[in-house]
């Protein structure tokens, strides 16, 4: 017997968790001497009140879509991939190499090539922890954490010593050639007669991210492989008994996860910075954890959560600009979301389950 209806599990619990996180965030804002309602108004107008705001919101959301999907796919195989940050960094390296050293005739081909390069680099960075988990039983959480730090050191080394143009002091690659610059939403929407802010960084890779959402949904719920991944996530023993190879599923799920995290680089490296800089990921790999948890690892949920975090990021930047609330407020909100939707899930779930049981008893 199910303890509570499905809608409560999918909608009510995340909603309550979100409300708890929002209430605590409001308390934090109050404690800094600002008005939480004014703050929300400022965030909404800053992030959604103009096409410029939307451009930034969607730009951030694109990053979080990729990293959120990456964490979600790993969650389905009951693995916690904390390494999205490092995988996205390596994805950036892949994008940079492909954009700098191949003379692309058109941005569309370059985008395909760069996405493939980012996916391969990201997947490769996930492959080692995956192999160690599958074959040697090393805990994937610890190895992916270590690989984040190793990636940062490696990228630092590569940027300072190998890819930095002569005479430049900046630890960054040269600018990508103009042929590989991606069209922004302004460029895409202008022919349709819709005017969109020219300054905002949202670009065509947002559409790639949305497509990735759909493909992940197909993969997880409509293919044999997706079924195997979910079966493995539900019960390793059961999956093993059904002839599903744990090594194969661990490897494939992590490779897909790493590839998705790596593909984030098509947005931030290729679409926005147009060169690879140090710390280009800016923690987006970690936000993927909050996004996947809030989205209940479902691609549509991830889509909504990524939009929400895109809004929080842009809104938070506006807050930092106009009030004395620093940007770190978003980190606190992110922490609270992870805490309530992830770690303290049972705190919300247990009383709700009791409530639904009591309701059912009264009906019977």
């Amino acid at each position, binding site marked *: 017997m199910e303890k509570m209806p499905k809608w409560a599990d999918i909608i009510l619990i995340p909603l309550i968790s979100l409300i708890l996180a929002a209430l605590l965030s409001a308390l934090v804002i109050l404690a800094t001497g600002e008005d939480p309602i004014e703050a929300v108004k400022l965030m909404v107008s800053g992030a959604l009140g103009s096409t410029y705001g939307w451009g930034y919101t969607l730009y951030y959301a694109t990053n979080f879509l990729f990293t959120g999907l990456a964490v979600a796919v790993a969650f389905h195989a009951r693995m916690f991939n904390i390494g999205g940050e490092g995988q996205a960094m390596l994805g950036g390296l892949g994008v940079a190499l492909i954009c700098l050293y191949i003379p692309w005739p058109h941005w569309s081909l370059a985008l395909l090539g760069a996405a493939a390069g980012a996916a391969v680099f990201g997947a490769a960075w996930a492959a080692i922890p995956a192999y160690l988990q599958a074959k040697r039983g090393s805990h994937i959480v*610890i190895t992916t954490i270590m690989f984040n730090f190793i990636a940062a050191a490696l990228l630092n080394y590569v940027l300072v010593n190998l890819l930095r143009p002569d005479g430049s002091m900046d630890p960054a690659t040269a600018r990508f050639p103009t042929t590989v610059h991606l069209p922004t939403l302004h460029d895409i929407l202008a022919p349709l007669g819709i005017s969109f802010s020219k300054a905002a960084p949202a670009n065509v890779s947002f559409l790639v991210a949305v497509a990735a959402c759909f493909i992940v949904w197909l993969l997880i719920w409509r293919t044999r492989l997706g079924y195997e991944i979910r079966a493995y996530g539900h019960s390793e023993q059961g999956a093993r008994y059904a002839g599903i190879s744990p090594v194969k599923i661990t490897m494939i799920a992590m490779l897909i996860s790493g590839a998705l995290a790596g593909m984030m680089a098509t947005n931030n490296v290729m679409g926005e910075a147009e060169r690879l800089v140090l710390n280009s990921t800016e923690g987006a790999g970690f936000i993927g954890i909050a996004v996947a948890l809030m989205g209940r690892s479902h691609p549509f949920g991830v889509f909504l959560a990524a939009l929400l975090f895109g809004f929080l990021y842009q809104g938070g930047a506006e807050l930092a600009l106009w009030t004395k609330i620093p940007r770190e407020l978003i980190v606190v909100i992110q922490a609270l979301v992870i805490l309530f939707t992830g770690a303290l899930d049972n705190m919300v779930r247990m009383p709700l389950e009791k409530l639904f049981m009591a309701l059912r008893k009264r009906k019977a």
Partner: protein
Amino acid sequence: MDFLTLIQVLDSTVRMATPLLLACLAGLYSERAGIFDIGLEGKMLAAAFFSAAVAAITGSVWMGLLAGVGASLILSGLHGLASVTFRGNQLISGVAINFLAAGLTVLIAQDWFHQGGRTPSLDGAARFGAIELPFAIGPADAEAAGRPLSQLLAEASPLQQFYSELISGQVILVYLTFLFVPLTAWILFGTRFGLRLRAVGENPAAVDTAGVSVTGLRYAAVAICGILCGVAGAQLATAEPAAGFIKDMSAGRGFIALAALIFAKWRPWHAMWACLLFGLFQALELRPDVLEAMVGLKVQAQLLGALPYVMTVVILAGFVGKAVPPKAGGEPYVKER
């Protein structure tokens, strides 16, 4: 490279290793009791901020230490609540705690001090100063002789150099930390509490059957972990040569401590050696000239910084002896099936 330079590098090794060792021992208690803790970093950071902030406000470093331990304990309590009481995912709870600390410390620092996420710099009684042991050559001798300290030290015998530079002149927390290693070994392997603590990390059902509270033991372990992380943070922010909190000042040390814990295979004495090794890497990062003389070629500092992580992955992979964590680690204990 002369002997004195070597001693100086070892001196900063000990200093660098201290917060690592404290955090590593903190993780040791927690993980030995079956509670994974990747929130060491966050607890250290929170403690670093509150110890520096309260020391700056009250002017007393001991009040600061107390505040730091308190802040770390609160986060520990949260971790215990999530992972013991509500049987949540311990790893996710750790991640949340890290972000909570990273965000809140800057937010509060900005609100209290308006210095871009810093605390005012500490001086005098607001920070831990070096302790000169008897017979060591210290700043007082230099003043009496009217010559620079470095000159006096250079002329001293190797034994005196070793004593004055490495053994003497550390902060009190450093001495206490290294005393805590044998104490931990004794607590874990010589007392009833330690036996139960280790048992609850391997087979909580057996402990429960014996009539001992699994919940109580795990909360105790998490609390010890919080206290030690608190001291680690205080050492980071308020012990010489540090003079206050800066944004993100733990800079991955909590994760290096975690790496050291795995490297040491969850054993106290080994944890000390692992932390000293990783402390040496950090010390060498600051002295590229010494490193060059030792290895004979120029080593990239960034790559040296990644070495603890690479070594931990190699150890985890089981190529050089296998690291097996406590069996019940990460699993919430459910009393009735």
